[in-house]
């Protein structure tokens, strides 16, 4: 067995004394779902760590090949179930590329607004979960959930669902904003900085938070690029790469915002990047809510049902809250995709989990995993 061999090799490396093997998960509160880490410990120090997953595998990609193009749209909600709207957008963007469609301006603005609200939800919850992992039981997470609920109310009034929104369509969006929605969204956005200030006053300077995160799980910029790490994790390591700026998809080219970057690439930087990104998201939201034009929300030429794009392929990607969310679709001219592939940021960001955890303590491994920000619905697909 491979595990036995690698264990004896690791034992030799540890000077011949016995290692403790711990199988953390799949039912473990700190693993953010059904995720397992096979850890070998020398005392408290991690000497080997192998991520094990697939417990939620339902072969989403195969199901996508059997569904029509539109039929996969509600299923994308279930990938990263915290950020259903950005998943919708990634898929819609790719099929639009494949079929040569374009969304009207109003729809693009609505997409930007919804994606940034999703980013707020994701980053707030991540900060809450991370603090929960460090032992701050309850309070930070509940504060984050309280704010999340206000945004979910907005989603519900627009799409009819809090989490499984299924809102975007190829060439636009499903329905227009209900009356009063913009004003409500403005109120939520205007109050968000107060929550962030409160959250930061509670946590950012906190001595325990600092001691648990500073210098823990350092990720070098070079390794991060080579291992395909994207999103806040990459930028925390000091690499300036944000797909909103690079590809300028949607109407991000018109928005004025900055890309925050970390210096050391440790867990504290990864926490801080998310807080700073939320402040930039609020800037984008203010601009988008101010400039939202009128007009149609769906390209009248777009065909929703029985869409048959010309034979060919397209790769589309967006800056999801967790990193680069890519879709790769091949069409053979039929009513369903020939190949439907998702490039999940959560899965690829796990590639270097072992590298970050080696030499640290088992308690650090929990915090490092928390700062990677994974959702198992997306890792396993």
């Amino acid at each position, binding site marked *: 067995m*491979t595990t036995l061999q690698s264990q004896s090799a690791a034992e030799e490396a540890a000077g011949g004394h016995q290692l403790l093997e711990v199988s953390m998960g799949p039912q473990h509160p700190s693993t953010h779902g059904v995720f397992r880490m096979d850890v070998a410990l020398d005392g408290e120090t991690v000497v080997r760590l192998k991520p094990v*997953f*697939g417990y939620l*595998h339902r*072969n989403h*990609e*195969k199901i996508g090949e059997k569904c029509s193009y539109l039929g996969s749209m509600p299923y994308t909600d279930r990938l990263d179930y915290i950020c259903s709207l950005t998943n919708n957008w990634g898929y819609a963007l790719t099929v639009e*590329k*494949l*079929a*040569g469609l374009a969304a009207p301006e109003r729809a693009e603005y609505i997409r930007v607004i919804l994606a940034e609200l999703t980013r707020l939800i994701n980053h707030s919850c991540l900060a809450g979960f991370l603090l929960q992992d460090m032992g701050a039981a309850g309070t930070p997470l509940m504060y984050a959930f309280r704010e999340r609920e206000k945004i979910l109310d907005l989603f519900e009034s627009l799409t009819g669902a809090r989490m499984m929104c299924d809102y975007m369509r190829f060439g636009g969006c499903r329905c227009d904003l209900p009356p009063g929605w913009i004003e409500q969204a403005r109120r939520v956005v205007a109050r968000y900085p107060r929550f962030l200030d409160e959250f930061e006053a509670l946590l950012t300077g906190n001595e325990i938070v600092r001691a648990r995160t500073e210098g823990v799980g350092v990720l070098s910029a070079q*390794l991060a*690029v*080579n*291992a*395909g*790490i*994207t999103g806040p994790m990459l930028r925390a390591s000091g*690499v300036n*790469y944000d797909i909103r700026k*690079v590809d300028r998809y949607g109407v991000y080219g018109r928005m004025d915002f900055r890309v925050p970057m970390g210096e050391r690439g440790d867990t504290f930087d990864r926490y801080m990047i998310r807080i700073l990104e939320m402040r930039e998201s609020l800037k984008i939201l203010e601009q988008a809510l101010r400039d939202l034009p009128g007009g149609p929300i769906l390209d009248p030429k777009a065909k929703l049902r029985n869409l048959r*794009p*010309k*034979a*060919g*392929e*397209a*790769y*589309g*990607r967006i800056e999801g809250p967790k990193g*680069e969310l*890519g879709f*790769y679709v*091949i*069409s053979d001219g039929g009513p369903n995709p020939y*190949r439907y*592939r998702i*490039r999940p940021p959560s*899965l*690829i960001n*796990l*590639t*270097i989990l072992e590298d970050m955890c080696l030499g640290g303590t088992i308690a650090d491994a929990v915090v490092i995993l928390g700062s990677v920000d994974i959702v198992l619905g997306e890792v*396993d*697909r």
Partner: protein
Amino acid sequence: MQSLEQLKARLEAAVPGVRAEIVPNGSPAGQPSLLLDNGHARAAAEFLRDDAELRLDYCSNATGVDWPETTVKEKVKVKKVVDGAEKEVEEVRERKRGGYLEAVYHLYSMARKEGPVIIRLRTENRGDRVALPSLTPVWRSCEFQEREIFDLYGVVFQGHPDLRRILMWPEFRDYPMRKDYVEPDDYEYEPTPHDEVLERARRHYAGGPAA
């Protein structure tokens, strides 16, 4: 950003013996790709990553595609004598294409903020010759993704540091993403009111112990 033709010419100059072929893309996305020969794929990948004008340091997406054996219909223009005069006539010809598995890599440059450059590798067939060179030593981001291609398509990546099943369990035998994969007939054996399921359960238990 260089065009794919320029890139191909520079690649052929830099890596002697490499065979590269441009695969056109019929969709409006306009993302043609470069098909590389398996023997020189590692060297070519290293060139693409390290070349100062390309710097494709980031492999975003690596995935598999299954192309089973099929007959391809092609339109060919043929000169024929019709009513005494020579004319060009379109004829549809059928050609058999052998099956193969494909690995597709989407490369971007974080340093130069360019991309994508798409490269493809193909196995010889779908049966006994399914080995491809692993690009994990060039781009670490392929590590889990190549494991996934191995797991779901059955492509064996030579030179991969840790090639195991990743989403399916180790004892699993088949490759579920292949086009000819047959689902097991007994995974939902609880009698439910669907005729289809009842029929499948009946077939599954025929001759076996009492259902």
